């Protein structure tokens, strides 16, 4: 299945390049024969649509899709980090007493 999808993706992009080439060729032909440009011929349009369909089908099916998660950046945050609320710190902790001990020694 994945091999088929990959192949169809490659064919799709190949066809797309071919449509570009055909359009250029068509315009060149018109210029040489002195005809006004009225639009792209139908067969080129059909080819373009087919290449689009093949390419998108191939891209979607050629690999396993991974869910896009909105919260991947949050997954790195630890649970404890939300318990620290720096704006609400109080200073009546053991820091003062420990600091005195450290100084005296």
């Amino acid at each position: 299945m994945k091999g088929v999808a990959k192949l169809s993706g490659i064919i799709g992009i190949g066809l797309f390049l071919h449509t570009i080439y055909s359009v250029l060729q068509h315009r060149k032909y018109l210029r040489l024969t002195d005809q006004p440009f009225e639009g792209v011929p139908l067969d080129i349009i059909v080819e373009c649509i087919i290449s689009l369909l093949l390419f998108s089908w191939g891209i979607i099916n050629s690999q396993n899709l991974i869910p896009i998660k909105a919260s991947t950046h949050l997954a790195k945050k630890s649970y404890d980090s939300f318990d620290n609320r720096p704006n609400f710190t109080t200073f009546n902790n053991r820091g003062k007493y420990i600091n005195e001990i450290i100084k005296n020694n």
Partner: protein
Amino acid sequence: MAEMLMLSSSDSIELNKFENKIRESRSFNWVLVRDTLRFLRKSKARKSNLVSKYGLKLVNEYISKLDAQESYDIIEQVLVSLLECGDDENANKLFNILKSKFGRESVRVQRLQAMIHESNFQLKDALDIYNSILEKYPADQMSYKRQVSIFKCQGNLTKAIQVLNTYLQIFMCDIEAWLELSSLHITFLSYSTALICLEEVILNAPINYIFYIKYAETLYSLGGIDNYNMAIQYYTHSLELNSPTEIDVLGHPPTYLPAIYGIIMSIFSLSDENVQIKESQLKLMEWAQNHLILITNKYSPDKLTFVKHFIDSTDIFNKE
């Protein structure tokens, strides 16, 4: 016990790396210290000892090398952590630097002055300063919050809740304040009120998996069959947001362990209430147990015996 078994996340691993590098480097590496302080400001982790010890040296000796804009941020950061460590002498020195630079009228300097008062337990002076700031600038959120923590410092929690409530009527989007309010309510064991606060938090940040865990934990603490069932739902939703499916591509230890412990405990408590446990919950329990062992095996194999013991003591499959 669950806390002891909790794995640290990538943030704390990075922090440990910084800390070890600082402690190991023989000479004083000011670039490293600056980066560490920067990281701490961003991650909001609390490391007062580290910041006050190395930050003070950075400010005292290398201040000229720092970026002018950043240096004052660093001074403020170091000052607050010096106060937390109770080193008033050096804090006053740094405060004088800021005062001579920005003048007495600056709100931020005034606030720091009030914080110094707070750490000396001159709470009344500090309150007066905050009140005078609020008279001039009624939208100064920080001063409101400091007032709350003054009341908290006094042990006057009812007053703190009252002030915080009036603050939250004005600034409804402040997640930190809602969390603080919920934790104050939890100290009064009024879990149902804390739940309302946490609902506000979830509304403000619906994609943060941690708040769902907090909500579920409070539900679990309330107890009762309905609440256990609800707690399981919230724990699983948290898992959905921070999902364990890609364990092998994860670059850091998983952070969803509280949810897994919560699921195991909730289902265990449900079975204690003599309720018929649903098929889906049994499946969930089995998955949680297996996954817990898997993670422990991978990240901290030395704690496997603890985890196995925990699983054995909460096992509902071989209970009879």
